[in-house]
């Protein structure tokens, strides 16, 4: 009887460990995300000038960084509860960081006194 109990406990522990292992976020993707956030901080995506303010009172790049942060936190919570959608939330967070970086680089390249094409106006007549 004691042997049966021990085997059951061992089996449950193994299944629990397996469940945790499958629910954790992939290390490579998380590292990539964190490296992107570091780059965003370094290039100043959090501190863009006032003429780039978005709807939430911050620059579009900063908005996307906030979104990325929220989605990364959600991904971690989902992963802890074994939700497979956590991978997708991590991908969403990564896409937001990438966009924030792109917007920050664009803002850095943008001339201050120029009405340029917004990028979505056809240039081919």
């Amino acid at each position: 009887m004691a042997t049966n109990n021990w085997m059951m406990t061992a089996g449950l522990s193994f299944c629990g460990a397996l469940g945790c292992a499958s629910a954790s976020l992939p290390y490579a993707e998380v590292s990539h995300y964190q490296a992107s956030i570091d780059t965003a901080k370094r290039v100043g995506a959090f501190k863009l000038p006032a003429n780039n303010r978005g709807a939430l009172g911050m620059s579009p790049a900063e908005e996307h960084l906030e979104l990325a942060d929220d989605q990364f936190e959600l991904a971690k919570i989902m992963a802890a509860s074994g939700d497979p959608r956590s991978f997708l939330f991590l991908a969403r967070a990564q896409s937001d960081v990438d966009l924030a970086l792109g917007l920050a680089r664009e803002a850095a390249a943008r001339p201050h006194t120029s009405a340029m094409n917004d990028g979505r106006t056809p240039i081919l007549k």
Partner: protein
Amino acid sequence: MKAHISKGSVLRATCSVVLAAVTGSCATGSVPSTLIEARRSLIASSTGLADALALSYLEDAKQMLERANHEFALHGNSDLCRDYSYIAENKFELADAVARAELFRQTKEDEGVGPGRPPRSEDARSSTGAPPAAVR
């Protein structure tokens, strides 16, 4: 040999097709707003700067949109479809941002050199409609 098709069988076939169409449309549900936005962005970006100056980013976005469309065709308005659409939309915006940054960079270079300078090879290719090398 002439096949006899009764009115009843035609009616039954028509009803089954209509029923399948109605059931199918109910199963797929309405198109998610994120997917609609991503499709709009595809049109906007494909006819804008990104098509000329950030082609690889645009292709990346198109692939993600294809995934979203495929998922919508298979499972309708699902979480996966909305997630793919969201990522596709971000990728289209990124392609536009990269293209604008590249345009600013080229403009700066042109202004720095001054008038009378012959066009660069990339400029010449752009004027003929072919895209320059993709920006990464």
